[in-house]
């Protein structure tokens, strides 16, 4: 063996308070870069529309000064839409990162294991049957997501849960929900079917503050929980027995992660519908950009926000006069990015 230099990791360590940790320069750089990119896309999204507003005027309008017309357009029409997109992207991607890490499998995303499909079935049922029980579509979407999560967890439970059981049973539940949704659409009226499909594809059209605020409150609670469990999640990646031996209360952490992940996906779906592919793709893109062995939670969340806001910008501007649903663009744009990263990783010999 040739003599190699002993690699010394970069770290920071303060004497007081006793804070320390390893530094991952590439992860930090990627995270910052994505944050800057997201900020720019948010600015452009606010400025572009039927009525273009210069970036300087956008900043003024956000602050509440400047032309009153601009203030109205920015603060009441465009900001809630962009904010909803950003928060939904964060929620979906973080939820995806939690599920993928917890089960050690990128396929275990909430949009694969039936959680978003559960929301979809509940909302489509309300639209097609014309009765929402006085709850509103958002609450129904939330309840549908939670119900399918409970179903998956209950069926997967056998003296504890394992990752692959959650995936297999989740895929089963997902197809049950999809079939139910298809049946409801097939037997309903054309007008309702149009409305249901519009919601199912994932949509940010006409989102106002009344959709943004509940989502923001949910995220304010769930994101700290998710990030707080992140440290324990790192031992969970080594398998249940190793994690248990390292002092991780495996079943409790898993339950906490599931609840946080389900809450994030359910509130996100309630606000914008099941936007395709974001929770599967964003954590994987973040992981490959950052070169880590697991989906980094914060970077995944930023990636999710960028993907949704960026896709919505494209959706609004691609065809003049038509506003496409954002879900179409996330699939079309996101899939090639993910494929490219996967192919590149294989060529570089770093597996996946």
């Amino acid at each position: 063996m040739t003599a190699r230099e002993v690699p010394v990791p970069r770290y920071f360590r303060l004497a007081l308070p006793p804070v320390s940790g390893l530094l991952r320069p590439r992860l930090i750089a990627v995270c910052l870069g994505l944050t800057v990119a997201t900020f720019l896309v948010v600015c452009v999204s606010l400025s572009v529309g039927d009525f273009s507003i210069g970036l300087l005027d956008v900043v003024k309008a956000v602050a509440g000064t400047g032309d009153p017309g601009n203030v109205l357009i920015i603060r009441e029409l465009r900001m809630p839409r962009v904010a909803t997109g950003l928060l939904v992207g964060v929620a979906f991607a973080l939820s995806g990162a939690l599920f993928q890490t917890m089960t050690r499998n990128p396929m275990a995303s909430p949009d694969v294991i039936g959680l978003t499909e559960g929301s979809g079935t509940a909302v489509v049922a309300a639209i097609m049957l014309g009765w929402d029980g006085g709850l509103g579509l958002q609450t129904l979407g939330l309840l549908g997501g939670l119900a399918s999560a409970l179903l998956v967890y209950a069926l997967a439970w056998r003296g504890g849960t394992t990752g692959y059981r959650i995936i297999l049973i989740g895929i089963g539940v997902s197809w049950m929900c999809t079939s139910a949704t298809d049946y409801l659409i097939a037997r309903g009226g054309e007008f309702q079917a149009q409305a249901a499909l519009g919601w199912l594809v994932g949509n940010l059209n006409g989102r106002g503050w009344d959709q943004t605020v509940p989502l923001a409150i949910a995220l304010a609670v769930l994101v700290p929980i998710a990030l707080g469990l992140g440290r324990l999640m790192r031992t969970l990646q080594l398998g249940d027995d190793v994690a248990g031996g390292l002092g991780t209360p495996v079943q409790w952490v898993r339950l906490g992660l599931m609840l946080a992940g389900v809450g994030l996906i359910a509130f996100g779906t309630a606000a914008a519908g099941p936007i395709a592919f974001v929770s599967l793709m964003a954590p994987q893109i973040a992981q490959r950009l950052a070169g880590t062995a697991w989906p980094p939670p914060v970077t995944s969340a930023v990636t999710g926000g960028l993907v949704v806001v960026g896709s919505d910008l494209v959706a609004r501007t691609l065809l003049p006069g038509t506003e496409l649903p954002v879900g179409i663009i996330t699939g079309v744009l996101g899939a090639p990015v993910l494929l490219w990263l996967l192919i590149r990783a294989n060529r570089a010999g770093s597996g996946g």
Partner: protein
Amino acid sequence: MENPAPDLRASDLTLAYDDAPVVSELDLVVPPGRITAIVGANACGKSTLLRALARLLTPRHGAVHLDGRALRSLPTRELAQRLGILPQGPVAPDGLTVLDLVNRGRSPHQTWWRQWSKADQSAVYAALAATDITDLADRPVDELSGGQRQRAWIAMAMAQGTEVLLLDEPTTYLDMAHQIDVLDLVTDLNRREGRTIVMVLHDLNQACRYADHMVAMKSGRIVAEGDPAGVITAATVEDVFDLRCQVTTDPVSGTPLVIPISRHHTAETVPRD
């Protein structure tokens, strides 16, 4: 080590998966500061016993005690600072570096805000050096050879800094040179650092060579335990493994050497039944 003589014992232990009992009414006192090897046929309950000693499995009856305190009453974190376990055939996520893996072993000593203290750093580097993988620290675990990978996992368990270390078949999937290598390393851990080791081993001869204390199990019960020379007799091996054999002396280590008698390739001089 703060406490060089941890008292780990199981009393009246009954273990079961679902409703199938695996271990029944078992009593065991782990000799502190020594290497204990648990041997037995497949599915005799030896790995199950090891998992219960690490609280990965809750007993149906009886209890495991560490220094007189029931394992289930110990805080999770405190237990993980005193007792570590390396399960059989652990798998690291693709791309995880050796350093990250070994640093995971420090989890019971870390908090959300303190993740690379001086103690963490010295423990991680000591473990890397002891397992001779310092220059592999930035390599992904999944790209290492089987022997190097097992060294990395043992380094993780070392970095955890526990007085008691439980190893479930640490030599599985390794070629013979690497098996000896890993067992020598385990012996170093015991002799240099005074750690109490309990390991499940498949190979009887290796168990005889490396163990101070031997526990032979059959159908969830302990059939014989004690000094390998006393435990490993032709009669015990026939009882435990249902295998006829001759026991001689290992010319290298002076410990018992089990030579199986098979239906074929057996010399005329060997008595057949």
